[in-house]
C-alpha cells in the first residue's frame, strides 16, 4: 500500500520534484543563481512565455494546437509600436489595438477550425505565415524604436519590488484559472476536447467554443507581444520566431494531452517555470547558445518521458 501512495505522490508532484531538483542543483553549481536579483530576473523572463502558455493550455485541452502565437507577438509589437511611436502618450489605445488585432487573428484561426473543419495545426500554420507577413508589411520590415517612458513601464517597471510583467502574469493566471475551473465555458473546453461528439449530443455548441478558445489565445498572444515590445523598447516585425514552441512545450511538460480533454493551469505554470529555469541556468553556466538548444531539448524530452513513465506504472 505504501508503494502505491509513493507512486501516487510522484505522479502528482513529479514535476515539482523536477523543478526543485533543478533549483537546488543550480544553487550549488552557480553562486549567482539563488539571489533575489536573479530570481526576479527569471520571473520577468518567463512572464511572456507564461502568458502564451496559459492561452495555449486552452487550445491544447480542446485537442488543438496554435502555431501562430509567435507571429502574433510580432503583430502585436508593430501595431502598438506604430501607435506609440507616433503618439507617445496614447498607451491604452495602443495596447488595446495590439491586443484586438491579435484577437482578430485568433478569431480567424477559430473560424477556419469551426467552419471548415480545418485541423488547428494546419489553420494556425497558415495564419502563422500570414501574421508574420502582415507584421513585415505593416512596418515595412523596420522596427519602431520606442522611447516613451510611460510605455516602457509595462515591461520594465516595478510594483514594489515585483516587475510589472510578473504582476501581469499573475493576473492572467488568476483569470485563466477562474475561466477554466469556475465557468461553464471552461467545462465545455474540457468536454469538447475529450469527446466532441458526446459534447454535441449533450447540447454543447462545439464550434462556438472552439472559436472562443482560439480567440482567447490570440488576445493573450497580443498581450504577451505588448509586454515584450515594452521590455525591449521596440516594436519588431521579426521577433517571436518559434515562441509557440516554448509555449507548447510548457503545456505539454505540464501534463496536458495533445489528444485533448486533459490539462491544468497548475501543470502549465510548472511547465513554464521549468523552461525558464533551464534557460536561466544555462546562461549562468555560460553554456554556448548553440549547446543551449540541445540541452534544453533533452531536458524537455526527459521531463515528459519521466512524467509518462510515472503515469504508466500504475
Amino acid at each position, binding site marked *: *500500500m505504501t508503494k*502505491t501512495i509513493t507512486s501516487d505522490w510522484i505522479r502528482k508532484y513529479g514535476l515539482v520534484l523536477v523543478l526543485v531538483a533543478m533549483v537546488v542543483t543550480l544553487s550549488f553549481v552557480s553562486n549567482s543563481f539563488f539571489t533575489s536579483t536573479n530570481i526576479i530576473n527569471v520571473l520577468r523572463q518567463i512572464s511572456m512565455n507564461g502568458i502564451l502558455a496559459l492561452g495555449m493550455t486552452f487550445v491544447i485541452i480542446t485537442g488543438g494546437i496554435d502555431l501562430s502565437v509567435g507571429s502574433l507577438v510580432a503583430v502585436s509589437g508593430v501595431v502598438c509600436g506604430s501607435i506609440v511611436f507616433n503618439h507617445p502618450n496614447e498607451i491604452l489605445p495602443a495596447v488595446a489595438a495590439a491586443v484586438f488585432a491579435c484577437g482578430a487573428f485568433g478569431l480567424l484561426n477559430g473560424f477556419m477550425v469551426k467552419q471548415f473543419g480545418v485541423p488547428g495545426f494546419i489553420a494556425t500554420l497558415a495564419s502563422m505565415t500570414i501574421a508574420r507577413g502582415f507584421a513585415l508589411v505593416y512596418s515595412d520590415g523596420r522596427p519602431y524604436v520606442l522611447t516613451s517612458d510611460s510605455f516602457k513601464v509595462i515591461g520594465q517597471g516595478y510594483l514594489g519590488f515585483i516587475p510589472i510583467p510578473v504582476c501581469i502574469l499573475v493576473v492572467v493566471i488568476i483569470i485563466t484559472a477562474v475561466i477554466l475551473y*469556475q*465557468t*461553464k*465555458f471552461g*467545462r*465545455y473546453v*474540457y*468536454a469538447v476536447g*475529450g*469527446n466532441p*461528439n*458526446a*459534447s*454535441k*449530443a*449533450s*447540447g*454543447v*455548441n462545439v464550434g462556438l467554443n472552439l472559436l472562443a478558445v482560439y480567440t482567447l489565445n490570440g488576445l493573450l498572444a497580443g498581450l504577451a507581444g505588448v509586454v515584450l515590445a515594452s521590455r525591449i523598447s521596440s516594436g519588431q516585425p521579426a521577433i517571436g520566431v518559434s515562441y509557440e514552441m516554448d509555449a507548447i512545450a510548457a503545456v505539454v511538460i505540464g501534463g496536458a*494531452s495533445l489528444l485533448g*480533454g*486533459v490539462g491544468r493551469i497548475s501543470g502549465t505554470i510548472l511547465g513554464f517555470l521549468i523552461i525558464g529555469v533551464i534557460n536561466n541556468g544555462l546562461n549562468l553556466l555560460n553554456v554556448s547558445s548553440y549547446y543551449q538548444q540541445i540541452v534544453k531539448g533533452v531536458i524537455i524530452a526527459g521531463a515528459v518521458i519521466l512524467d509518462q513513465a510515472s503515469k504508466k506504472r*500504475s
Partner: protein
Amino acid sequence: MDETILEMTDIQKIFPGVLALSGVDLAIKKGEVHALMGENGAGKSTLVKILMGLYRPDGGHIRFCGEEVSIDSPSIALRLGISMIHQELSPIPEMTVAENIFLGRESLLPWTPFIKKKEQKERTRELLAEFNLDLGAGVKMSSLSVAQMQMVEIIKAVSYESKLIIMDEPTSALADEEADNLFKTIRDLKRKNVAVIYISHRLEEVFEIADRATVLRDGRYIGTLDKDGITRDRLISMMVGRELSTIYPKQAVEMGPPVLEAKGFDRKGIFSGIGFVVHRGEILGIAGLIGSGRSEIMRALYGLDPLDSGELYLEGKKISIRSPRDAIRKGIVMVNEDRKGYGLVLCRSVRENIALQNLEHLTSIGLFIRRKNETKGCSSMVERLSVKAPSLAVAAESLSGGNQQKVVLAKSLMIRPRVLILDEPTRGIDIGAKAEIHRLMSEFASEGMAIIMISSELPEIMGMSDRILVIGEGRIRGEFLRDQASQEDILKCALAG
C-alpha cells in the same frame, strides 16, 4: 484428459487495492463452445486478458495443450494458437480485407520490404470462400457492415490456425439475423475442432450455442455447468447470487395525452414517411434490424443527423429542432447507442459528465458554475440510479459498462425531460444493471415521462414496451400493442420485404 486444451488453475490477479481474481479455474475442451458468464466486474475480462497475455497473473497456472505455459504478451498467445475477437472491433478502416487479415505478418518477397500482395489476396479469397462470405479481398474495411467486419476478424483469428478463439460480446453490435450467421460460423469452427470461449450477457445465446458454461462472481469461481444443467434460473442465480423474480418489470401505466408527434419524416435514402406518436407514461418500443434506419430516425429527430423534411409537435405545438441543443432545451433528450462515442467524455470525471448536459441550470448569471448545486444534483442522481462509483471525481472510463450507462442516464435525467429517447439502453451491460435500468424506465414512465426505446433484443422490446413500432428499410412496417404481439410476429415483420 488429452481432450482438454486449456487448463487455468487457481488464477489470481491483484490490482492496486482490488483483488480482481482469486482462485479462478477454467478448463476448456477441444472443439467445445464454453460460455464464460458473470456480471460486469465479475472478472471475465480480466481472466481472458490474462489468457491473451495482456495482464500477468499474480498467481496460478496455465496449461495449454498439456504443457505449462507462461503467456507474457499477446504475440505469445497468438503463437500458441489463442486469439481473441474484441468487444470493440479494431480493424483499420482504410485498409483492405486482405491487408487487415495479414496485418503484422505480411508475407514479403525474400530479402525485401515488399509485400506479396497477390499471394495475400489469393489466400484471403480462399478463407472468405471457406466461410461463405461474399466479399472481395480488396474491399476496404470501412465499406463493410459491423457484422461483416466481425466475420473478417473471425477469419483472421482462424487464419492464425488458432486452436482457441475468445469472443467477447460478439453479438453486441449485431441484429438477430446476423447473430444467426455468427452461430453458423461458430458451429463450423467446432467441426474444425477449434474451441471457443464465448462471453455474452445474452442468456438466449448461451442456451443456443454453448456446450458448457463457467460462472464467475466478484472475481471468484462459482461453478461450471454442462449443457443439460444450463437453465435460465440456475445461471442467473449463480451470476447474481440471488433470485431475480422478473427481468422486465414495466408496470401498466394509464396512458396520458400525446406528448410528441412526428409527421412525414424523410431523409433521402435513409428513411421516408415516418410518423408516430408517444404519450405520457408510455414506452414506445422501436424494433428493426441494424441498418433499418431506426437509429437514424431518432438521431434526426434529436438534431444530430440531418432531416430533409418532416414536422414535429410537442404537446400539440409545432417545434423545430436543428441541434441537440434545441432538443434538450425543449425537454427532449436522447441516450445514444454508442456510449463511448456519443455518451461520455471518458477522460473526465463522473461529476463533469453528469453536469455537462445541465450546466445551463447550474450556473449563476449563466457563467459561473455553482459547485454546491452541482454536487447536490450529481450525487442525488448517482444515488437514485445507484451508480457504483468510488466518488464523483473518478474518471468515467474507470467504471464498468453498466455504471457508465447509468452515468449517461443520470446526465439525461437530471433535468427531468418530457421525452426520453433510448437507443439500445442495455447493450453490453450485465444482467443486474440491466434489470435496474428497466426498473428505472418503468418508474420514470409512471411519473409521466414519454419514453422511446430502440432495442435489438426482442425480449426487451416485448417486455418493456406498451406499443411497438417495427422499422424495416427506412419505413414503418407494422405497429403492435404489447399483448397483441409475439416475438415471431415482430421478427417476421422486420424481415419482410
